């Protein structure tokens, strides 16, 4: 594969790929370009969707895979959670080691008898706040 890098301060920045077929490298490049533009590539039923991070209700891990909920729709995400943490804006907060929720999509906080508090989102998704993250969550919510 031919590779050219042209650094020219006069021209508008662009990235053009010519490939014979979609492959892993193309997907990775798309992810990287998307990260720059606050666009995340989400996968569902062999289709790729471009979602802006603000649309998502939450990002979470399940069996070592990352998923996002946009409303009731569940998408697979190819980025790792720590990469998402870096690119997502302040609307998102970490509630446990495997879940980032959109603060604007929180419907309520709910308590359990065991001393844990869960976040319930407008789409019905709920996950617990770990003790480690509770301090950050309280700070984020202004307590």
């Amino acid at each position, binding site marked *: 594969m031919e590779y050219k890098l042209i650094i020219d301060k006069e021209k508008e920045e662009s990235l053009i790929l010519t490939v014979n077929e979609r492959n892993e490298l193309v997907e990775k490049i798309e992810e990287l370009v998307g990260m720059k533009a606050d666009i995340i590539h989400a996968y569902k039923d062999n289709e790729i969707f471009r979602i802006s991070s603000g649309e998502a209700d939450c990002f979470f891990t*399940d*069996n070592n895979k990352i998923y996002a909920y946009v409303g009731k729709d569940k998408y697979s995400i190819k980025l790792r959670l720590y990469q998402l943490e870096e690119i997502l804006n302040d609307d998102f907060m970490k509630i446990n080691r495997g879940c980032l929720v959109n603060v604007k999509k*929180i*419907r*309520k*906080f*709910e*308590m*359990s*008898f*065991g*001393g*844990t*508090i869960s976040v319930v989102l407008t789409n019905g998704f*709920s996950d*617990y706040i770990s003790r480690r993250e*509770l301090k950050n*969550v*309280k700070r984020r*919510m*202004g*307590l």
Partner: protein
Amino acid sequence: MNKYVKEFCLRGLIFGGFGPIIVGIVYLCISLSTELAVSGTEFFSAIISTYLLAFVHAGASIFPQIESWSIIKSISVHFPTLYIAYTLCYLINTWIPFDWKVVLIYTAIFILVYLAIWVTVFTITKRTTKNLNKRI
């Protein structure tokens, strides 16, 4: 492996080590204040059993977080798990004798302490939850 079983084991492995540390500190404090003579076998038994106790105690903290379980189900699994683990540990190490009267008193104290802890935790959590909900 079920994610809750995995989490049970993970929490157990993380916090299991605290059992022997605590028992070591307790034995040290007792030996400083009284003439405590603990044999190697007794000390070994205490280390192993408190490790398992701490493992189960930490692991059992996942029960209240199982979304599909009601509070009643959580308590009815959480309480016996802790009670059995603690009672076996106390009996094995002869911290309480095999006497039904003593076990009965121990059980009453265990229930009272269990209730007191949960009432405290419940009150604090309820207040925090209420405050968080006000901020939405």
